[in-house]
């Protein structure tokens, strides 16, 4: 075989060089990218990699894809031993796996896993070309096809090579599949040696072609998925990306301004489309697919194009379509972070004043008055006037619980009744609470996610100052959006508080027996997990506990908890027009609920009350599906009259 050694050396080195050359742009981009601190907590990071890859946790949420990927994935490792042998035996004459079982148990495994690989490949082809899931729309079809052909070549050539070797006299007792092929070759009376050599070189050629092909293909994820998961974000998911101090303006206007992890994300995308399948903006017909957001940026990174990033590679409408629901990140098997990129690009647009008229109005109102509706701050606590009792002013007397009410709960007439109900429940349970009256400002959660970092800082500072001037133990918020900002964003602006959602406080009061509930008759209701309560802050159980405690039977929708479907209001979407929307996310959600045949749709967010009431009105189903806040479900027993 020695004559083959120099040839293989030359071809292999050439292939490796070509691969490196094809990767040069990516390598240069990553090398020049700004830093990101993703090196802490190595054990926790490794554990995440083990779960994501070893257990295929997110992959298996789609069973067929998960199983076929697991088959291909495991087979790849087993068959890698074939590759090692194929190259090792010729590059370093005398090298062999035989001493550790290359001709026995390893041979058996190779034989079996070659078949499993083909089975996985078959399922993949069946899924892509017969089932055609919508999430593949926009993924590169030719890329997948080329890889399928290369895998088929690699696996079949290795089986034929082994079969030919058996025909030539090798021991086939550990290779049942190759033995069958050997029988076939004998039947066709193909010459053993030349067949073996041809199959060998096809195998080598296909592997090297695969290697060379990978840098330009989504199959980079074979190398990058593990590092990308390892370097994933370990901060609380509710904290928006900070603006690095070295940036001159808050936003990002070019790919090179993204830190290396954000750029690594782009290279790691598998084009699986799981993010696209759960995206409410995509479902509503808006020009945003989180998958294509990533792949478009990735292609721009490779092509070194002169097209501007914001408003060029990524259209402005695409950026404004996002509700910041975080469903994409939750679904992504390789932990790609779509949202930080969207927020950073929005920051650039806002800094340049490129905002729609509606958003401009809302932001101007927020700047001027601290609320998006343009209402005077003096009217913020107006809802308390119709209560039968006074509400403490936390600015002038100490309270146990400082209630941060939020804009919608304070100002929107459709929600004020709920706010009063919450106040009544707190009072009935003997909670010592107070509010900030006109010192409260919008929490800035959605302002920040709309890309208005400067205004967010102003709002946050004003709230933090007001809160710190009060004496209290805990903060409770009505709005999950406020909850998120106060709990996760304010920490970095000098405000570390204990913050909980009103559903958590109510659940606590119920558990402590401080609310004397008159339970309902067990009617079935469904419940919508608000993004900023559930996916962002893990508040899945308290609202459900309350629903049960109130005497109702809960029938969850298929998309619930982590997989909840956004109402469409978040991240400043509520301040944008519905132009281009084919089906509002809220109406999509109401249709899902209607399919369950329940009469009540329970919410735990003031914006949801507004969005879903509007949706049932628009669909003409307001009489068959009531939108009620969790608090409205709770009926208290009349206090026994003295």
């Amino acid at each position, binding site marked *: 075989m020695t004559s083959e050694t120099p040839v293989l050396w030359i071809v292999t080195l050439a292939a490796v060089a070509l691969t490196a050359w094809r990767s040069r742009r990516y390598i240069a981009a990553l090398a020049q990218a700004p830093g990101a601190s993703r090196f802490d907590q190595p054990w926790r990071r490794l554990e995440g990699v083990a779960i994501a890859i070893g257990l295929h946790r997110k992959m298996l949420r789609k069973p067929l894809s998960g199983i076929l990927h697991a088959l291909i994935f495991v087979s790849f490792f087993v068959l890698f031993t074939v590759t090692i042998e194929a190259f090792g035996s010729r590059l370093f004459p005398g090298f062999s796996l035989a001493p550790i079982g290359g001709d026995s148990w390893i041979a058996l495994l190779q034989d079996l896993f070659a078949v499993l690989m083909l089975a996985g490949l078959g399922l993949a082809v069946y899924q892509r070309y017969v089932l055609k899931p919508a999430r593949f729309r926009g993924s590169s079809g030719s890329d997948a096809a080329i890889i399928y052909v290369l895998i088929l070549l690699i696996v079949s050539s290795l089986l034929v090579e082994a079969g030919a070797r058996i025909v030539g006299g090798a021991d086939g007792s550990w290779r049942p599949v190759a033995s069958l092929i050997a029988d076939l070759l004998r039947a066709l009376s193909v010459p053993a040696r030349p067949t073996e050599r041809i199959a060998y070189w096809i195998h080598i050629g296909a592997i090297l072609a695969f290697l060379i092909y990978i840098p330009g293909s989504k199959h980079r994820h074979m190398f990058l998925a593990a590092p990308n998961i390892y370097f994933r974000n370990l901060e609380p998911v509710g904290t928006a990306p900070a603006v690095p101090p070295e940036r001159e*303006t*808050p936003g990002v206007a070019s790919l090179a301004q993204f830190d290396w992890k954000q750029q690594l994300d782009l290279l790691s995308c598998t084009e699986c489309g799981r993010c696209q399948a759960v995206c409410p903006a995509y479902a509503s017909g808006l020009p945003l697919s989180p998958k294509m957001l990533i792949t478009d940026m990735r292609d721009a990174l490779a092509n070194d194009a002169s097209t501007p990033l914001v408003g060029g590679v990524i259209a402005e409408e695409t950026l404004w379509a996002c509700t910041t629901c975080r469903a994409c990140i939750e679904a992504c098997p390789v932990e790609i972070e779509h949202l930080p990129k969207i927020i950073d690009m929005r920051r650039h647009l*806002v*800094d340049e*004043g490129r*905002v729609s*008229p509606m958003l*401009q109005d809302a*932001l*101007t109102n927020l*700047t*001027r*008055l601290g609320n998006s509706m*343009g*209402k*005077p*701050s*003096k*009217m913020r606590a107006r809802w308390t006037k119709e209560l039968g009792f006074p509400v403490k002013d936390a600015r002038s007397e100490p309270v146990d619980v400082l209630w941060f009410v939020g804009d919608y709960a304070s100002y929107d007439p459709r929600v004020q009744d709920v706010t009063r109900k919450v106040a009544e429940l707190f009072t009935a349970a003997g909670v010592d609470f107070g509010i900030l009256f006109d010192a409260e400002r919008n929490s800035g959660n959605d302002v920040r996610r709309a890309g*208005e*970092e*400067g*205004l*967010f*800082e*102003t709002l946050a500072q004003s709230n933090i100052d007001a809160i710190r001037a009060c004496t209290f133990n805990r903060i409770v918020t009505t709005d999950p959006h406020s909850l998120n900002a106060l709990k996760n964003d304010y920490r970095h602006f000098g405000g570390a508080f204990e913050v909980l959602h009103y559903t958590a406080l109510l659940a606590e009061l119920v558990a402590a027996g401080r609310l004397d509930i008159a339970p309902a008759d067990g009617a079935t209701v469904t419940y919508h997990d608000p993004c900023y309560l559930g996916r962002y802050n893990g508040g899945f159980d308290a609202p459900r506990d309350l629903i049960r405690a109130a005497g109702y039977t809960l029938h969850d929708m298929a998309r619930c908890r982590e997989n909840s479907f956004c109402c469409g209001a978040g991240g400043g979407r509520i301040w944008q027009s519905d132009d281009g929307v084919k089906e509002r996310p809220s109406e999509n959600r109401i249709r899902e609920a209607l399919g369950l045949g329940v009469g009540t749709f329970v919410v735990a967010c003031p914006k949801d009350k507004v969005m879903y009431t509007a949706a049932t*009105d628009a669909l*003409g189903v*307001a*009489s068959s599906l009531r939108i009620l806040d969790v608090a409205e479900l709770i009926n208290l027993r009349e206090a026994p009259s003295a």
Partner: protein
Amino acid sequence: MKILVVLRMIPDSAGELELTSDGRGIDREWLDFQLNDFDDHALEEAILLKEAAGATVVAVAIGEGSNRVLQMAVARGADEAIALEAEGDGMIDSRAIAGSIVALARSKAADLVLCGVQSTEDLFGQLVPYAGALLSWPHVSGSSRLGADGSALRVTQERGGGIAATYEIALPAVIGVQTASKAPRYVSGSKLREASKTAIGKAPSEPAGFERSAEIVALRLPGQRGTGENLGDNPENVAERLANILAAKGFAGV
């Protein structure tokens, strides 16, 4: 070119207006104040002129909340910010402030004074003619587009019926802006925070030299109009009831 822009702070109409005890003014104590919308357009037009032809923009603000609005003006591109001291805290009376504006226009050597065509406290748009008269400069009100053309200014003025007239007037001049050529831009919070460091100058109030002409003897709050009627939320019923109401009021033949 040096442009002086006048920014007047007016009561926020979304607030609840209450009259003072003598019934001759609005109780300003609990009110929020906002920039007069037309003045916002005047500011935008000044900045657009600066961007197109080069100019120095001096923003002058009057009334409660002036400093905040001046910072905004600087963030949008104004070069200098001046808060005009007002006499008392009543309405911003064009007849009274014209003298101060004119004094500033002279001391700053402005060759163009821009202000909103009217304000809720000057519905007849008197500031522009007063200032023009005191300065003996030409003046045009109701502009929808300004263009610098050497030492002259092209002013497009909206007339009724969709007709627009374009004037060419020699500088110096006073213009009452109805709308800027482009909608006022959004200025980001980070630019505002940056601009909040700018020093804001002060200018004393100067008499206009006019005799007092008239006094307000009474103000009246808007009265309760007829109340609305809720048509319910069932689209079919709503349509039918609406049709009946229209028919009953003689809007449609049924």
